[in-house]
């Protein structure tokens, strides 16, 4: 019934991703099986960090962001991501048996025990993992109550009506599954390279079965480049985007040019990127063990850090799987997402907001 009502509504709610470096707002229009980006705006934050920590400042930034594009209606879904949200696999049978997403006191206590990096009263939820999994049975989510309320109040402060505050990880899973028709046997991954950390979401049959921190984020990479090249962070940021990292492995053999600067950037980031690739590989292997018979599928790169030039090729070489930016899927017949070229930020920048809008 809800799905039918959702389909009848032409415009989705506005997905608002409170990132550490920017706030992104996206609205989609449904046309048949297609989801067309009808409104999109992205506002870089003056002070980087947890955008929703200060609701008034976030509301002001969001209000500026909303003025940049036209949106239908005022209904919004806000998203917050790790490390403001923590995800923990749960083995508790009670979690799977619970009637709704509110864990019973035992599961809640277990989530509070596992959650170590969030201060203050916690709000906990979970989603059960599909049958056939050997372990775990659910993924628990914990967030500081104040942060969730701040996200909602930021939306309200910007003139929106916040219907829900959700974790970005599930939104990314939804986003990824609009890019093409994935095989049910594939383990599809999304790597969200954020400012503070890289977050990996692995999905089986459209469901996120593993959500974890995979390594450092874009800001740490910029710092490494700045130290390695002995330049300012601002210059390092420019080098990171323009030169990127040097091609390695099979891509190197294809004859792509390899500049000295990109080699230096690669040298500065090699350890982080190798750790990242190793973490992703271990995560894929873990899920393949949990779901025997499933094979490692593609990895989709999103987030501001995914714009590091040649990162997809590096990870593809290291992991032995296809690694793509969302832009690579757009225009494909199997892709249900349509993003107009003009005035819309690249989908890798606003993937979380698109996913949140899709969930509405």
């Amino acid at each position: 019934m809800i799905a039918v009502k959702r389909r009848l509504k032409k415009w989705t709610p506005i997905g608002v991703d409170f990132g550490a470096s920017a706030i992104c707002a996206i609205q989609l229009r449904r046309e048949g099986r297609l989801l067309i980006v009808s409104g999109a705006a992205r506002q870089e934050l003056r002070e980087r960090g947890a955008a929703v920590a200060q609701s008034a400042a976030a509301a002001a930034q969001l209000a500026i962001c909303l003025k940049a594009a036209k949106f239908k209606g005022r209904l919004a879904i806000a998203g917050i991501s790790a490390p403001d949200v923590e995800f923990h696999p749960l083995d508790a049978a009670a979690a799977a048996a619970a009637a709704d997403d509110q864990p019973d006191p035992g599961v809640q206590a277990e989530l509070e025990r596992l959650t170590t990096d969030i201060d203050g009263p916690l709000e906990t939820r979970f989603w059960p993992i599909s049958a056939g999994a050997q372990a775990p049975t659910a993924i628990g989510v914990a967030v500081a109550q104040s942060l969730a309320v701040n996200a909602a109040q930021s939306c309200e402060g910007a003139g929106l009506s916040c219907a829900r505050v959700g974790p970005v990880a599930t939104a990314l899973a939804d986003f990824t599954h609009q890019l093409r028709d994935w095989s049910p046997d594939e383990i599809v991954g999304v790597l969200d390279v954020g400012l503070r950390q890289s977050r990996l979401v692995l999905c089986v049959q459209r469901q996120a079965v593993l959500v974890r921190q995979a390594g450092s984020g874009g800001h740490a990479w910029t710092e490494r480049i700045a130290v390695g090249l002995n330049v300012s962070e601002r210059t390092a940021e420019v080098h990171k985007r323009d030169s990127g990292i040097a091609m390695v492995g099979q891509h190197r053999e294809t004859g792509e040019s390899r500049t000295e600067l990109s080699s230096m950037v690669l040298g500065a980031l090699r350890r982080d990127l190798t750790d990242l690739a190793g973490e992703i590989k271990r995560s894929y292997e873990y899920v393949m063990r949990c779901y025997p018979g499933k094979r490692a599928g593609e990895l989709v790169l999103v987030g501001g850090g995914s714009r590091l030039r040649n990162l997809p090729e590096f990870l593809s070489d290291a992991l032995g799987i296809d690694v793509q930016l969302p832009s690579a899927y757009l225009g494909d017949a199997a892709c249900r997402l349509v993003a107009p070229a003009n005035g819309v930020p690249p989908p890798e920048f606003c993937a979380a907001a698109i996913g949140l809008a899709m969930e509405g």
Partner: protein
Amino acid sequence: MGALNLLPREYQQAQRRIRRVRAWAAVLLPAAGIVAALLAVDGVQDVRAEELRLENDRIQEQLNDRRSEVRRLAAAADEALVRLQRSDALRAKRNWSGMFQLFAECMPAACWLESVATDPDMPPASGGLVSRARPAGADSAKTANIAIEAPRKVRLRGYALDAAEPLGFVAKLKQSGVFQSVTMERSVYESEGKPPRFRFELICEW
């Protein structure tokens, strides 16, 4: 995937309450506005009706004043009409020029008249007037002819130098046959007059 909501339950309930209140307000405020507008219109109409009532009372008062004025004027007009009709009737009853010619022919040379008057000199207020009824009509009362009974006596006052002269005057009037009777009411000698004379008074009755 199922959409999780990380908002605390209390906050969600508060939001739902606020949304409900807003929804009710969105419904009730326009309704209240409409009711208020209707009441305001009703109030304005009441005030207007009261004003009209007062205006009506004022006009009714003026109308009553005008009606009484019209009645008064109509009464005055009726009175004037009656007087006119009475005088017309009086004029029409006797051929006074003929009457005076008779008096002149019968009057001796040494007599002269001081006054000639009907007796009574005016028709009585009632009894003398006879209203001849007309067919019923809207203003039959106003247009009804009034017949005045003619006087039956005429009183002649005059003077004579000789006592026999008034008697001769009486005899000639009787002989004319116009009157049923002619009587000498009085004949008084007035020695203070110059010359001395007899003051007489005759009543001629038809």
